[in-house]
């Protein structure tokens, strides 16, 4: 067998093996083959309804955004994406300038914490420092490395005035960095910030928490519900239900 035929033969063998594993329900998530072009494989959230409106998941090589008001499930949905990535053996990064991520929640969501790089904002701000600029530079470094399948830039908690001060070209630059890579860049924000031409803009609308039991000491929080609208002009909608983590 010639060397040129090897990748094709290996791909065919792997496809057959994966099919067998799926048929026997032995392996639900198949990792990509070494050298395989992963750019065509979207990053699924694991939520069927949401993945359906996203066209299979979050597109790689694109800037996408996830925005909504407080308690609309933004972090839970982003963690679901990171869970899928780390469970496939790939790496995810969470850039967190406001230092709000809870590792306990991340572990409860199923993330392999050893494959999650968490960049936390400074505990105290040094006079004259430009934390958001540094955050964007770090995001660019992560995107440029090509090591991560998913980079989440968590802008929740960053004052809107700081976001407004950023030059308009900021997002275009990030979009150009991520373009053509196998990384998906996801912005988490309270309101629309930016998304690339092929990236998704997901707006979340809270539908309220779910409690169980009568009012009193035995009452339990079971989770929260929301609606995901994908697309800004003709949105496609899907329900979202997140379970209480602990």
């Amino acid at each position, binding site marked *: 067998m010639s060397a040129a035929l090897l990748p094709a033969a290996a791909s065919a063998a792997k496809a057959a093996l994966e099919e067998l594993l799926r048929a026997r329900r032995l392996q639900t998530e198949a990792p990509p083959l070494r050298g395989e072009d992963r750019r065509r494989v979207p990053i699924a959230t694991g939520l069927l309804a949401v993945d359906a409106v996203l066209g299979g998941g979050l597109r790689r090589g694109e800037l996408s955004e996830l925005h909504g008001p407080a308690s609309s499930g933004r972090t839970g949905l982003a963690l*679901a994406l990171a869970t899928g990535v780390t469970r496939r053996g790939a*790496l995810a990064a969470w850039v967190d300038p406001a230092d709000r*991520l809870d590792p306990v929640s991340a572990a409860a969501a199923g993330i392999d914490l050893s494959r999650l790089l968490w960049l936390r904002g400074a505990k105290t701000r040094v006079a004259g420092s430009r934390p958001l600029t540094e955050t964007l530079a770090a995001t660019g470094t992560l995107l440029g490395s090509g090591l991560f399948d998913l980079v989440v830039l968590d802008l929740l908690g960053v004052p809107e005035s700081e976001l407004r001060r950023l030059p308009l070209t900021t997002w275009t630059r990030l979009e150009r960095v991520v373009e053509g890579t196998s990384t998906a860049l996801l912005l988490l924000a309270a309101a629309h910030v930016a998304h690339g031409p092929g990236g998704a803009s997901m707006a979340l609308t809270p539908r309220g928490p779910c409690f169980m039991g009568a009012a009193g000491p035995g009452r339990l929080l079971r989770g929260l519900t929301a609606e995901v609208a994908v697309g800004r002009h003709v949105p496609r909608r899907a329900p979202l239900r997140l379970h209480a983590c602990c």
Partner: protein
Amino acid sequence: MYGCLHSSSPLPSEEALFDLAKEFTPRVEAKAPTPVLLDLSGLGRIWPDPVALGQAILDLGRARGLDPNVALAGTRTAALVLARSHAGLTVVPPGGEAAALAPLSLDLIDLDPDRLALLQRWGLRSLGDLAALPAVALSERLGPEGPRLRRRARGEDDAPFVASPAPERFELTLDLEWPVDGLEPLSFLLARVLEPLCASLVARGRRAAGLGLDLRLVDGSTHRRALRPAAPSADPRTWRTLLLLDLEVHPPRDAIQALTVRAEPTPSRSVQFSLLDPAQPSPEKLAETMARLHEWTKDGRSGAPSLLDTHRPGAFAVGTFAPGPASAAAREPPLPRMALRVFRPPLPAEVAVKDGGPAFVSAAGVRGAVVDRAGPWRASGDWWDGAYSREEWDVTLGGAGLYRIFRDRLRDAWFVEGELD
């Protein structure tokens, strides 16, 4: 004829005795910095007198600041034992090994303590006592080890001489005609040094586990940096980037007159790729990326999070980001979970209590009437060290979201821990 160099005093470097031996013969056996064995056969034309040869070795050693014991004998075992027992120079003519070793102590032939105690209980005190015992009787009592010990006590060799290869040094120095200032010109100079250094590492099947950089400055001082990334590498581009990133953070205080790069070699890693496992990140790329993120990771706040084995709410640690091989994922995908967005530190809150539960919450950026709530969930612990005792509530605030608040029972104060999202 064999020789042995042994030093009971600390050596200036691990290779000091090895280098001394190499001055006289290319065939040197060294399993440790000391002792070092020399094969002196064939040197008769240059050194007809073994005593003169031994004296020359001793003199050169002393000239180098060493104080070695030098022993020359017909067998390696005899030379080794004599170098351990006699200071200065000892020369035993061929055939006289057994007689020379006979008065020496038993513990000079590397006996394990149990075996030494056994021989002493038999009344043996010297190597001569052991050598005088019949081989058959020793074999009957100690098995195959008995005759072997007897041969060593008589100064006979058990195994052939195995010459050790010279220790590999990967070090390059570049003296500059004109001092350079700044990282940009240094980048080109580093490339000139690193490329041949990495090529010589690759040619010997090695990688650099660490790299030392000595910059001799114009003011006469030396600026030393040492790098040890998570994975060894022999890629000059990676090392140059890592060195430049390190020098950006720790710049030299004056112009550079000369530079020396020293690699710490390690065998190349061999990785067995798997058809079904995902491709792992390149260790070189990972080390380079983490060096670029040095400002974020230097104080240990950023990296890979891990949970601690405690019931204390929200306890975690952050370690170095060094992902290992992917482990097999659980069969069933986990349920999507809502997450807590933590306030660090928790926000102090004013909470109005009604019917035993919170009715109104007011904190910085979080304010509203409680429209629904679940709780209280009590937790306490660590009474021996930083005790905590708290009462948690998950509350829905009218139009403001879902929050986790808690009452610190030790301080009787309310806090907002985070937003459930």
